[in-house]
């Protein structure tokens, strides 16, 4: 079953065509990777699928079985609030109307699952780029989303953190989360069992 059916989608900025008549499907409960070089339009496509940007033309059908789907997005350069690690995670749960009594357990459980609970005692400013990237992923999966959008996940990650990342992604894949990743990292792509879409100069192909 498809979660997204994209038909003849185009996106233009100041007369420059970023995405050219893209037609494709994104399957449910699998990892889909949009692969392509820098400037190919991958991030724009991901933002359009998420609903952050409106396409210039074409259509996207979201087949969400009439239920409210929880979506999460991890940005290429994630921004954090000027608060502690715990309060950054608390903020997501606050925004998602999760009862305050559940916050602590939910955060601890998710961090422990990936051996990242040590972060709780650290100052946000003391975390490395790789740790921040993993924290951004934790922040996105705290609410157990139905669809996870991830833009260039391996930026800032060393080989050890990439292993942690792959473990996290596979875990959520096996839990039934549909994952859409944008990446140009061939090493990462080889490590994940996935559906692949290739993007080149705004044109998408299977």
């Amino acid at each position, binding site marked *: 079953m498809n979660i997204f059916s994209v038909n003849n989608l185009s996106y233009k900025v100041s007369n420059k065509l970023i995405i050219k008549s893209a037609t494709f499907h994104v399957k449910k409960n699998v990892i889909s990777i949009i692969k392509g070089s820098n400037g190919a339009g991958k991030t724009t496509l991901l933002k359009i699928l*998420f609903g*952050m940007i409106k396409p210039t033309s074409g259509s996207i059908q979201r087949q969400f079985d009439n239920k409210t789907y929880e*979506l*999460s*997005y991890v*940005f290429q350069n*994630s*921004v954090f*609030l*000027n608060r502690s690690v715990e309060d950054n995670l608390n*903020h*997501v749960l*606050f*925004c*998602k109307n999760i009862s305050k009594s559940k916050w602590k357990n939910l955060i601890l459980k998710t961090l422990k699952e990936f051996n990242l609970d040590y972060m709780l005692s650290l100052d946000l400013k003391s975390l490395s780029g790789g740790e921040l990237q993993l924290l951004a992923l934790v922040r996105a999966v705290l609410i157990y989303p139905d669809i996870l959008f991830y833009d260039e996940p391996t930026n800032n990650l060393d080989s050890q953190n990439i292993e942690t990342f792959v473990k996290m992604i596979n875990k959520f894949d096996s839990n039934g989360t549909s994952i859409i990743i944008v990446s140009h990292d061939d090493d990462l792509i080889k490590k994940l069992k996935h559906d692949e879409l290739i993007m080149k100069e705004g044109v998408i192909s299977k």
Partner: protein
Amino acid sequence: MYVNVVLSFLVELVLQSLANIFELNNSFKDVVILSLYVSVIATIISSVISIYLTSYMAIKNFFGKDAITLIFNSLMSLPPVVVGLILYITFSSSGVLGFMDLLYSPNIMIIAQFIIVTPIIISLSLKCLNDRYSLLSDYLFSLNTSENKIRRTLVYESRYDLLIIVITGMSRALSEVGAVIIVGGNIDNLTRVMTTSIVLETSRGELSLALSLGISLIVIAVTMNLLISYIKNKLL
């Protein structure tokens, strides 16, 4: 010889001023308390309204947003005497709102300071919240949360900058003289504040009293600036 006379005069003036401050007689105390009361109330009301409005303006794009921003930026340099004059005309017995009987009361002074301070707090808050929102907008959008929670997040994340803006507004209110002297009338034990009292005592030749009020005003202003520095250095 001349220098000695001038110096002894200045020393005596400063000593007498300091004596006035430490004596803390009732009339002096009342003037300082009323000044703080009027400025604090005006700043609090202005801050609540301004921050509420600008948190809305920062996350919304609507027709006329740029024009409203431009108007508030221009109103930052609103001359206080003009504000005082307009309020005087409006609230005088033959004015549109004369029936409210507010002229020559602390309440009209609060209104005057509110009008002077609000464009400053709105303009600075809007700039601050706009900048913060452009930084956080993608992340906040990705949370798919309510507009109210986005605004609360934005204000909370900007809290230290906003506090500095509020203190800046209060400094402006405290040092204002043109409007409050027109609408308050500088009535002893009723509407006399530090700035209007300085004007009066100087014209009367009571320089030591005027200077003691001036020193108090500077101490309050310096304390607020120290507070701003503390917030900037320790909390930001």
